[in-house]
């Protein structure tokens, strides 16, 4: 049932999945309000753009450092820039006033993955990150077209080096397998055709902008997805957007991000995908159909997702009155838990779900919660009893009864309960 009046537990459910963490202020404001109204408010909020992006070196300057043989200096600067970018984003995750936008920035970062360690140009990764935020709740067609021309993506998946003599298939392969259709919905020959169509899409090394290098391009002459006349990259993207699998594939990924790690419900996916396509790929239309679906609110799906490391870390600080942690510590712990920001392990991104919880990562999760829970300022805790604390912080009954007599003791017992790892 889609609630017409949110109780504490339903408010927590929406906050933990569509926003970040279990913010007490949000939960208070949402209680008694309908899901319809709350979701509308979330979707209508004007995105909070993070201020003061870090000043990063431009490629030109440190390429010249590399050339003048100052390798170690250049490397140091590169690492400093990477760290500055990660800290800046994590800080924003802790403080943003429109957490749904950042929820989708995380989603798209794990969809259109790009690793800063391959690109090795933090300024280009920042540019891509801002692009993703600009479109996070915008239009998927625009986002896909923009990503295909994004310099960091062109470097990450070698599109920038895709020449007609011997097309580089890396981008074309992941475009079909990961970004649009999903595995099993195309042939090897479609990858080769797409790779050819994208030849010549590259990055101008002086301006760090997308450029079409006609001398490296040869139009594709082979059929693509059974159609002829798909000659250039734009036409490939449009053919992919015209294919019904693209919207379904995104909808399936949303099922795993917002509902459950189990097999998606086919009828629900069809519904979401149709809404998405009929709107002309408006991401808000997709989100609205998800967040106002029976599946999202169903009791049997509550607490069926695991918190990602970024969920756990930023959620903890957003939910509880803690004195702030040094920004480099936030980054270090995210990496330790298996989610080094801007460094997805493969182009497929972080697997998520059960894979977030391994013997090593579970041990580290408890260690990190222990470390930061010492920053708790108990005087700033809301006045709640044990049952309320459970509903506030845990999506299911605790695995062990929450022992303790004071608010603080019960709260700590909730943090260390395995159920706190769920959302």
């Amino acid at each position: 049932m889609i609630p017409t009046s949110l109780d504490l537990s339903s408010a927590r459910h929406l906050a933990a999945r569509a926003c970040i963490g279990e913010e007490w202020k949000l939960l208070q404001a949402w209680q008694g309000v309908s899901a319809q109204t709350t979701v509308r408010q979330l979707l209508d909020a004007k995105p909070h753009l993070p201020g003061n992006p870090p000043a990063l070196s431009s490629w030109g300057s440190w390429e010249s450092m590399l050339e003048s043989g100052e390798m170690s200096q250049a490397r140091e600067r590169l690492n400093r820039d990477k760290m500055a970018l990660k800290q800046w984003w994590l800080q924003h995750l802790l403080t943003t006033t429109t957490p749904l936008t950042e929820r989708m920035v995380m989603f798209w970062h794990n969809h259109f993955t790009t690793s800063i360690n391959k690109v090795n140009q933090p300024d280009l990764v920042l540019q891509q990150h801002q692009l993703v935020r600009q479109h996070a709740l915008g239009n998927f067609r625009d986002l896909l077209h923009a990503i295909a021309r994004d310099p960091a993506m062109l470097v990450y998946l070698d599109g920038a080096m895709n020449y007609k003599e011997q097309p580089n298939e890396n981008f074309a392969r992941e475009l079909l397998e990961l970004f649009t259709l999903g595995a099993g919905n195309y042939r090897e020959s479609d990858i080769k055709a797409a790779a050819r169509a994208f030849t010549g899409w590259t990055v101008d090394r002086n301006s760090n902008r997308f450029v079409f290098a006609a001398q490296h391009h040869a139009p594709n002459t082979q059929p693509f997805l059974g159609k002829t006349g798909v000659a250039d990259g734009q036409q490939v993207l449009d053919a992919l957007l015209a294919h019904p699998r693209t919207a379904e594939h995104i909808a399936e990924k949303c099922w795993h991000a917002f509902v459950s790690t189990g097999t998606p419900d086919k009828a629900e996916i069809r519904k979401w995908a149709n809404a998405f396509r009929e709107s002309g790929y408006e991401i808000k239309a997709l989100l609205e159909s998800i967040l106002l679906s029976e599946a999202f609110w169903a009791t049997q799906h509550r607490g069926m997702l695991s918190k990602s490391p970024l969920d756990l870390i930023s959620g903890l600080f957003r939910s509880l009155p803690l004195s702030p942690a040094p920004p480099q510590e936030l980054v270090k712990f995210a990496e330790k838990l298996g989610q080094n920001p801007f460094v997805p392990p493969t182009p497929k991104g972080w697997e998520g779900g059960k894979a977030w919880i391994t013997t090593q990562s579970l041990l580290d999760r408890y260690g990190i919660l222990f470390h930061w829970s010492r920053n708790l300022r108990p005087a700033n805790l809301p006045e709640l009893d044990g049952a309320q604390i459970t509903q506030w912080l845990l999506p299911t009954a605790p695995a062990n009864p929450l022992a303790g007599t004071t608010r603080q003791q019960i709260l700590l017992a909730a943090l260390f309960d395995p159920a706190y790892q769920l959302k």
Partner: protein
Amino acid sequence: MNRRDFLKSLGALPLLHLLPASVEAGQKQRCVVLVELKGGNDSLNTLVPYQDAAYYRLRPQLALREQQVLPLGNGMGLHPAMQPLLPLWRNGEMAWIQGVGIPGQNLARSHFTSIHTWDTASEDQHSQQGWLSRVFPEQAQHLQGVVIGDELGPLAGGHFNAVNLHDIDAFAAYISSLPAVPTHSSNPMLAHILATQQRLLNAGAEVSHKLKGNQAIKQQFPKGAFGEGLASIARLILSDFNMPVYKIGLGNFDTHVSQPNLHQKLLGELANGLAAFSKVMQAHGKWGDVMVLSYSEFGRRAAENHNMGTDHGSAAAHFAIGGGVKGGMYGTHPDLDALNEGDVRNSLDFRSLYASLARRWWQRSSPWPVADIPFIA
């Protein structure tokens, strides 16, 4: 009288193979160290057909020249960065198995579907059972495997008792503070967390009981995550955990661009780490019980691309090293004049590696009806 003699005296020996492994606990366990070359290693530039004219035709920029490679005989040679492993080859302790791949690989050459197939030996892309759980189907109380890193891969699966960890000492130290939890939940995600916690509690008891200090061993390994990981594996083996399998990974071998330097660096890390590992095992009399086997999601395209790199391919050569290895070349070097859409052809089913380990190394039955490769004596 040991257990075997005791059983023999009862006339029970013919049935010995039916007993679960735990009955034979206390006996020396032969182990395998799986080394995953993540991203798809370019095996043509690892085990190099340096007298094959087609190799030079396909790779005008990337081919290694005859004077660069370390000749192994019959026109095959190693990448120069593999030099630290050459003594093992000369000693008859290194085998190369050529032309290994996934038969009828029908899914496009994807990293993700390919490594999943290698990990599970199953065509079902949703299977979560690693191939080891099929060789060791019985429920085990004691630890059966350790993965250094984050992905269980071939060691995954509900009943295969494996843990993953980064640093063995920190792991052992933290684990002691964990509380007990109930073991069941109807929520599958919570059930997974509870099972993981239970596994930690069990592993913690076993690790604190068995792990020996032997910290000094670390000094004998190269710096870096791969060397340090191998040092942890060596310490576990020398602490007599008697686990059948360990896994470690190295990467990223996905060399679409500027391959030469990257490949050189990675193979150097691989060879230096494994050479140190073999020396430590030899010094402690364990080398005969250890088998190191490499694997990777696929080999790379026979022809180089336009970016001094190579794209995704299919078949590849893999190596095994260890005191129990029957050194030499196995399988056939793929015919570079008879490519299949630009790829060398498979001549050996990848599951043959697993079947050989199952039957010849662990003396178990193979769940896969494929022939052995006689690289294990």
